[in-house]
């Protein structure tokens, strides 16, 4: 998947390892806060063990990331290799989709999301994309509403219509 040699450090790997370690330390502190060292069978012991393993392995990961050679200068950077524009836009679209779903309901928000995502990723004639959106959404709706009888989110905006 990644084009760079795994022996080399991937762009952003060091920062990610550092974030993981910070998260682990915070988790350990929170686990300690549950019941401290008051007993061996309290609610906090296992969370402390788990987060302790995270702190130790996080340290090992950080050290090995720091000691592996950095990616060559001409190699693609963080934004072209790890989160290229496709990822930024798609994650943004999903976030918008997730936020809008309770408001607009499943059908409207999914139609918007599918159309935007198809259009952005495929870049074909919008009319064709519109037809594709309608077709896939109809298929999803029939399969899940009728066959699986799943409750699909209804929007607060158009309650009763969709």
């Amino acid at each position, binding site marked *: *998947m990644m084009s760079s040699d795994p022996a080399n450090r991937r762009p952003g790997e060091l920062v990610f390892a550092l974030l993981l370690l910070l998260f682990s330390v915070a988790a350990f502190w929170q*686990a300690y806060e549950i019941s401290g060292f008051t007993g061996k*069978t309290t609610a906090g012991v296992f969370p402390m063990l788990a987060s302790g393993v995270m702190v130790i392995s996080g340290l090992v990961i950080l050290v090995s990331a720091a000691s592996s050679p950095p990616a060559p200068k001409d190699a693609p950077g963080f934004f072209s290799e790890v989160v290229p524009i496709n990822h930024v836009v798609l994650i943004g679209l999903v976030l918008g989709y997730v936020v809008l779903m309770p408001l607009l309901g499943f059908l409207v928000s999914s139609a918007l999301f599918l159309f935007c995502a198809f259009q952005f990723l495929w870049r074909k004639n919008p009319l064709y994309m519109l037809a594709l959106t309608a077709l896939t959404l109809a298929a999803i709706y029939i399969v*899940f509403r009728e066959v699986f009888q799943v409750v699909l989110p209804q929007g607060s905006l158009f309650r009763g219509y969709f």
Partner: protein
Amino acid sequence: MLEALGFFAIAWTDPWLIFLTAAGTLAGIYVGAIPGLSVTMATSILISFTFKWDVNEALALISGVFFGGVYGGSRTAILLNIPGAPSAIATAIEGYPLAKRGEAGEAIGLTTVMSVFGGFVGILALALFAPVISSFALMFQSRDYLLLGIIGILLVGTLSGESFAKGAFAGALGVLIGMVGLDPMTAEGRFTFGSIHLLGGIPYVAAMIGFFGVAEALVQLHTLNTPAIKQKIDRIIPRFSDVKKYFWLAIRASGIGTIIGALPGTGGDIAALLAYDDAKRTTKNPERPFGTGTREGLVAPEAANNAAVGGAHIPMLTLGIPGDAVTAVIIGALFIHGLKPGPLLLVETPHLFWFIVGSLTLANVFLLIFGLTGIRMFTKIVECPKAVLIPLIIVLSAVGTYAIQNNPIDVYWMLLFGVIGYFMKTYGFQVGPVILGVILGPMMDSNYRRAMLRARQDVGDFLWAFVSNPISLVLTTGLLIMLISQTPLWPILRRRVFRITD
């Protein structure tokens, strides 16, 4: 025995269940075959769609998807040189050169027959050994379950990931996620930060769908424009002489697959690679060198990965320890239906066990039917562009997550886990151990505390029990070997030992 046969037959006599198994198998073949869709992804999304169903119906569908999916990966491996699933990597090495020579149809036919064969061996092992292991497992104590949990998580993490530390981190992160919410023993809140929503814990299906669905979709975004190459399909039904010729190899590979599948934490991916490697070493005169389209190299991994399906069910149903990522998800499904996989499952709900065996067998029969038909139509569907597939995966993931509790907050969790999972995958972490940790974490926690209470909170007594009880001693030794083999001590030790034996 007769009773067991009766339960077994339920899967074969109810037309609706037969239909669901067939539909699951067919859908599974496509899911496994379409690069970008995985069995784990499909089962985790399916759980949320089927949790209101009767448990038999849900299991029939999931069994079908599991079998179909493990097999389906081979088709794209042969036709497009893209393994549809990790368990088909070895298949691609041998199958694609065969397809390039115009023997794609025959390769698919042989793969299908051998996959079905391996599948039956795995199911037979499940039916024969699960009851034995399950009665043996009744002797297991709390600490043994704790050990099994740790071994399972570490095995998933270390065998397929980049490094031991990354595997251990992912597993511990999963355990931590599983700890969030009310402690079932003392009703104290853990990591709840005063939020009422967090008291109920993080919904594990949201984590599964996030890690296996959304994260995978984001990874697939890197290969948006990989063009597919078409292949000619001719004869599909394999020659009987071929089947006869590779029979013993298939038996061997199925044996490897069943055993690897039955080890907690190792599944079809590893089984396929090991069987391929074994075939490479033991085949004396292959018709062509390995790597250039030899049939032995096609038969072994495919028989093995389907045998691993039955194998992976053994620890899941008898110990409650999943054999791989898919069975971890299936355990989640059983939990949702109020069942407790473990040694008592066979005692308390034998009908469920024999029903699973029955529907797996039926799914395998359907695999043979669907595997040898509909290949021309298949090539059309698999060419579905990723630009269409990725948004679809996301919509299905969102609907699936929402369906569990009708709670929009779960969908946020799904997205968060999806993004975290994407970064983890990018930096060489496996997400399998995370899910295993989420599923096994609460079980390990309560077993740890029970074992500690039994030792009257005395650390010395607690640790002594790990080496003084025979079952515990075997498991402890296994765990220690795993740990030592990851340290620099291992090569030194091995050299010492070899010097002595020389």
